[in-house]
């Protein structure tokens, strides 16, 4: 069952063709201006190199930064209506209140607050007002808005009102696209609502992108099912990515980490992904990236939906060393993609981290001769500092006192020493396309995050119930029921609430259900 994994990054487009655990072909090329022609070329190359026929490819998995870039650049964002069910509570802070002005303007700054919403224990704050919502729906239609985000206070406790409000609004906004906050985020109304609004604003773009990928794939002659990778390392089908484009945010680092795990066979590890300008460090727990527990800033907007916990430092192969005699002068600037012109070993006149590694004989790139003019002690001191920077970042992400390995991936991973602190470093083959491998091996997930009352059930029963819910979601998303396993579970007791309220966050994953061959729309 051959699979193709593609990872479209800001700089590079990588692709691999895998059969089971074997990598039959891989390619790395610069991301093209129009993106799709680079994707087509990469897929055609791995097909040609492997000799696999289009008809034999079982599935294609795509990781893309399209949607993150749209938010960061404030481009291709649709005019969006934000409708919050909360009154009379929560009116002190309207939707998008903490957004930077430019992105609020980019989505049109259309917010409404209506009656509805829940208390922490599931009681209604007020009843849903059908008339009120119909009036809001009329206003939305009159403004010509088609993307709508609906949020409700405590919708992680119950999403019934958000669904009901959607049904009412849909009667007044024909052709509207709706995002419910309960489908995306966790507790924390502003952050969850912001993620929902961003998602709604990206939906039209996501429809165009899915269409463009479909056109590209049919041009190549690939009729197999295709999936997009989410930021937890699992897959979503085309319908799902059309509905939830924000879930692709940060899928690049996630794919790298998952690929590193697969290539080394290590499920619990620190992953150090060294590029030209920066190093991303993350932690793998049971083969998946650990999720950030804090609010994550996307394009200046605080959101709290699931994102990998990644710590980045300004250290890469192209990082500039301003003064060889001063270990404090490493970075933060980098020559970036111009490394092949500007680094000393490539005939340039800028001292970079790559030059130090080559000068010490730790890697063979370019012309090592030019480094002979440097005193060895100077280079050793610089390398020592680089090692220290990597060790500090790795230690920060370490999740247990166990001696887990450090997995070094990415084009700049020659910078990583053989030991990071007390941890052994592993360097997988195909380390430079770990992200495309991560895409190719994607699984399906199901997640639950809500408050349970332990007054009427034990902690164990609550965890079982949460697990049952997550499993149902996972199967609904296309997972093979027998393959589903628990990969993450956390319960936090909530202070001051009666009935021993506890917040349970839990995630399961399973293998992709095989499709019967017909095209998957």
């Amino acid at each position, binding site marked *: 069952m051959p699979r193709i994994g593609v990872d479209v990054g800001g700089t590079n487009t990588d692709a691999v063709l895998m059969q089971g655990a074997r990598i039959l072909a891989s390619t790395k090329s610069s991301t093209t201006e129009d993106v799709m022609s680079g994707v087509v070329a990469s897929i055609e190359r791995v097909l040609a190199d492997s000799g696999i026929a289009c008809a034999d490819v079982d599935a294609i998995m795509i990781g893309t930064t399209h949607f993150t870039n749209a938010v960061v650049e404030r481009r291709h964002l649709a005019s969006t209506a934000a409708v919050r069910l909360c009154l009379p*509570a929560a009116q*002190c802070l309207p939707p998008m209140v903490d957004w930077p002005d430019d992105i609020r303007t980019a989505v049109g700054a259309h917010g409404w607050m209506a009656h509805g919403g829940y208390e*922490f224990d599931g009681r209604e704050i007020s009843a849903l007002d059908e008339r009120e919502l119909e009036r809001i729906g009329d206003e939305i239609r009159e403004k010509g808005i088609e993307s709508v985000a609906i949020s409700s206070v405590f919708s992680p406790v119950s999403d019934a009102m958000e669904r009901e409000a959607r049904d009412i609004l849909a009667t007044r906004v024909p052709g509207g696209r709706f995002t419910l906050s309960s489908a995306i985020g966790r*507790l924390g109304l502003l952050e969850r609502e912001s993620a929902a609004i961003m998602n709604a604003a990206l939906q039209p773009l996501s429809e165009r992108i899915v269409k463009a990928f479909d056109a590209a794939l049919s041009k190549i002659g690939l009729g197999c099912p295709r999936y997009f990778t989410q930021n937890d390392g699992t897959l979503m089908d085309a319908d799902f990515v059309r509905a939830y484009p924000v879930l692709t945010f940060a899928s690049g680092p996630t794919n790298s980490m998952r690929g590193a795990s697969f290539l080394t066979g290590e499920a619990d590890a620190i992953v150090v992904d060294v590029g030209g300008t920066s190093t991303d460090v993350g932690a793998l727990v049971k083969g998946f990236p650990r999720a950030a527990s804090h609010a994550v800033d996307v394009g200046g907007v605080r959101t709290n939906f699931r994102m990998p916990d990644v710590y980045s430092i300004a250290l890469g192969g192209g990082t500039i060393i301003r003064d060889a005699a001063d270990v404090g002068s490493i970075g933060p600037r980098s020559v970036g993609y111009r490394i092949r012109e500007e680094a000393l070993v490539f005939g340039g006149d800028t001292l970079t981290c790559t030059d130090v590694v080559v000068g010490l004989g730790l890697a063979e790139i370019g012309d090592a001769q030019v480094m002979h003019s440097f005193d060895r002690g100077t280079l050793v001191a610089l390398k020592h500092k680089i090692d220290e920077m990597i060790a500090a970042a790795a230690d*920060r992400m370490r999740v247990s*006192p166990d001696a887990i390995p450090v997995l070094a991936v990415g084009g700049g991973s020659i910078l990583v020493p053989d030991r990071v602190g007390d941890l052994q470093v592993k360097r997988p083959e195909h380390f430079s396309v770990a992200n495309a491998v991560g895409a190719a091996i994607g699984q399906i997930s199901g997640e639950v995050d809500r408050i349970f009352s332990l007054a009427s059930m034990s902690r164990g029963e609550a965890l079982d119930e949460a697990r049952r819910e997550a499993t149902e979601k996972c199967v609904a998303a296309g997972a093979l029921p027998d393959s589903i396993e628990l990969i993450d579970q956390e319960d936090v007791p909530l*202070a001051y*609430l009666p009935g021993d309220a506890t917040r349970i966050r839990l995630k399961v994953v399973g293998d992709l259900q095989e499709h019967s061959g017909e095209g998957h729309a």
Partner: protein
Amino acid sequence: MLDIGPEELDAIEIGAAILGTGGGGNPYIGKLRCLEELKKGRRIRVMSLDDLADDARVVSLGGIGAPVVGIEKFEQGEECLRALKALEQELDCTVDALISVEIGGANAMEPMLTAAQADLPVVDGDGMGRAFPEMQMCTWSIYGHPMAPAAMVDDKNNVLIIRHTASEIWVERLARAAVVAMGAAAGLASAPMSGAFVKSAAIPGTVSQALSLGRAVLQSQREHRDPIEAVLAHEDGRFLMTGKIVDLERHLKGGFAVGQVHLEGFGHSLGDSGLIDLQNEFLIFRRNGVVEITVPDLIVVLEADTGLPLTTEVLRYGQRVAVLALPSHDLLRTPEALGVVGPAAFGYDELTFDPMPRSR
């Protein structure tokens, strides 16, 4: 009179969270609400305790509820203002100034935004100098001013007057029971105090303290200097340790999050082990099994790299933190105060409060 603008609010957000010693709720939402008031053209004015007239009427107020509800069900917006008005109506009086009951955490912001709505000044001080889990742990109660009559208002404009209570703890008990029915969020204003009493019982200057603490952290971040040093240089504080969280237990006991944080030292603290007990706030710090700091002195846990304060609910295995201690005010160190906020009040009968020395 100090006018509070957006820059000051950013700093107070951080400073108030530092003084929250792990609890008190997140001031972020409150900061946004203050910014909304400023956008409406209202002013947040902070007056010095010294400028308060002896016969001024001062009301202490704040939000009551649960931190997790605070991030999900924000207030309607005028809960505290309505509680203030209800109190004025009940007692047929007018109030001259507001003061925070608790500077640590979210309740640093609540009096400021209410003062903006009511066009009243906020007094530079508070009733705790930090965060504590219960209302009777404020200096107003400790030094003899009953909180009742108190007014409590929720998002639906249910107004509750607690006219009289048998003792101060009954205000906490009754309000806690009522707030659950109200959806775990309400504003509470307690009986007006005289300016003279506030001058004797308030922890002085804590709004400015939060402001300058936050500024120290923000400035050190801008200048890429060590924020921990900045806090220590600025405050009369003591460095306890830098450590990595190697174990973390949290569970519920009587509605409170109770637990322990185990730290393994790094950097200057290599070889040391630390243990912090928490009950909503950080209460006790032990180094290598020996008690060094106890409540009411402030135990502050900061993210080692950024200097940003961490609350008990965001602590996580593997985090690298710096632990500092700040001395509590003398008003929290008297026998009357220690009976309410000393170690024994939190169930540590075997510990006596040994005040950390002040260096200036």
